[in-house]
């Protein structure tokens, strides 16, 4: 399979981030890492959105991914980042396979509310878990990457490289996925479920697979966040965090995988500067930006790129 054009662009972008990581200040490396990590959760939200479903509970898997890293290090003594991420994915997939059985029956607001309910139930359980630090959460221990011990176990550069590599893999996969039969089938379900069944496809099967993959990717995002931030807490499962992911997904739009990464970076930067410049009214700014985007760019910022291309051609 030859690389498509957008795949080459993704690889180039990843290479550029890796190269720039040697030049940029530490805070920017950290911010970029967080952006990549949340972009992955957002991609999960985007996957569901393409199928016409909005999840207000993707924080559930984000949180599981984060806690898997924290608990794997703390209670099982596992230090390898990839193994920790893998553990999170395993737990997530198991849970998503169970919840997916139920959730694929729901649409629209009911899907949104049920996903929200499940993530809030996890939140409640974690808040009640005093040995996991309750709402305070706990620190993530030092970790290693493939037997080598990056910068004394913390290193923000290493985690950026890791996030870039994992992010690239996920982006390449999803780029293919969105153009594949099942990726298109998801869009078809959003458009017309009756026809999907009358084509001989099972919408529940398609939605189920899509949901489980979206969950797994969300979990990876959570794992990377906790590796970078060095701390996990139940807020990760709180509904406002899930709302943030939906926010970013809308900001980017569902047009292209790259849109989620760009949108996550923009979101984090806008928030950072709004918090800094207007500490008393940053929510106002965020809300206004969101409204303007919905009003003028209903398909997200990615439509800026496609619009330009259309004009050019």
């Amino acid at each position, binding site marked *: *399979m030859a690389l498509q054009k957008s795949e080459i662009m993704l690889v180039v972008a990843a290479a550029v981030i890796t190269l720039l990581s040697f030049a940029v200040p530490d805070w920017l490396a950290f911010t970029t890492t967080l952006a990549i990590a949340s972009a992955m959760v957002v991609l999960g939200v985007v996957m569901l959105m393409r199928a016409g479903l909005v999840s207000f509970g993707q924080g559930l898997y984000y949180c599981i991914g984060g806690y898997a890293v924290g608990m794997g290090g703390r209670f099982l003594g596992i230090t390898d980042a990839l193994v920790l991420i893998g553990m999170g994915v395993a737990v997530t997939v198991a849970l998503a396979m169970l919840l997916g059985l139920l959730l694929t029956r729901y649409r629209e607001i009911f899907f949104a509310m049920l996903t929200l309910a499940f993530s809030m139930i996890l939140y409640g359980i974690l808040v009640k878990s005093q040995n996991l630090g309750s709402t305070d959460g706990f620190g993530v221990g030092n970790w290693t990457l493939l037997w080598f011990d990056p910068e004394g176990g913390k290193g923000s550069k290493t985690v950026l490289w890791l996030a870039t590599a994992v992010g690239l893999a996920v982006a390449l996969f999803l780029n293919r996925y969105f153009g*594949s*039969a*099942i990726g*298109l089938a998801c869009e*078809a379900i959003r458009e017309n479920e009756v026809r999907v069944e*009358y084509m001989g496809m099972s919408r529940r099967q398609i939605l189920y697979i899509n949901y489980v993959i979206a969950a797994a990717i969300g979990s990876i995002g959570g794992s990377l966040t906790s590796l970078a931030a060095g701390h996990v807490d139940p807020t990760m499962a709180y509904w406002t965090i899930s709302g943030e992911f939906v926010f970013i997904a809308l900001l980017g739009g569902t047009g292209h995988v790259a849109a989620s990464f760009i949108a996550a970076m923009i979101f984090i930067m806008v928030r950072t500067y709004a918090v800094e410049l207007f500490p008393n009214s940053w929510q106002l700014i965020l809300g206004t930006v969101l409204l303007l985007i919905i009003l003028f760019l209903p398909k997200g910022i990615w439509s800026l790129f496609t619009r330009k291309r259309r004009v050019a051609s």
Partner: protein
Amino acid sequence: MTEILKTEGLSRYFGAVVAAEDINVTITEGEIVGVIGSNGAGKTTFINMVTGYLPPSAGTIAFDGHPIKGLGPRKLMRKGLSRSFQIPQLFLELSVLDNLSMALSASEHRHLEMLRPVRTPERIAAADEILNQMGITQYRDEMVTAMPQGARKLLDIAIAMLANPRMLLLDEPTSGVSTDEKHALMDTVMEVVKRRGLTVLFVEHDMEIVRKYVTRVLAFASGVVIKDGPVEDVLADEQVQELVTGKRQQKPTEGKNDTQDETQKGGA
């Protein structure tokens, strides 16, 4: 000549309303059957029951000798029973090519593939072929929203055919199409049907078209099959005559009828 579809005592009630009652129909492989009747006579209800969209209240359905009652649309498609819709059921925001590629991937049982692009060269070729046969090649890369109603009808039928069915049920293939285009459309469709050797059952209001294409007619009234037989016999029947002429008089109020009501939101 083998029986392909057989219904016995097929009925459907919506509360106290009788939508279809005691329908006994046997269709043989290779037949082209027309279904006539005024709006609300139970034609669409019949098709919806046969293709698994509406569970029947009573009766049995057999396809190819096997009972199929209780199976959903998806399983029936897989068995070779396909249909089109009065209001085309299409993916409006996808391109025509994507609509067709999707249908092809499903008919190949490959709709769960994740890494291969859905538009393989083989599928593009197959899609081009059917577009060509249907005469709607010019819309290939457009979104469905850009197509006129007649072309959408053809695309809807094309998708139904891509499932490689043995039997095809067409629900009012010419409704919503201008009188001039009706014949051209049906010519195109029946050409493809013949080439593929399909058994066809179609609902039609235009008696000229019925006469032109079918060998046998089922006449519905008030949820019951009042006449079933060769086209000339049925159309000559007094009761049917009344129905046909009566229906002609009714035409201006068509939009308010309950069958219409039941179907008008399909494309939304």
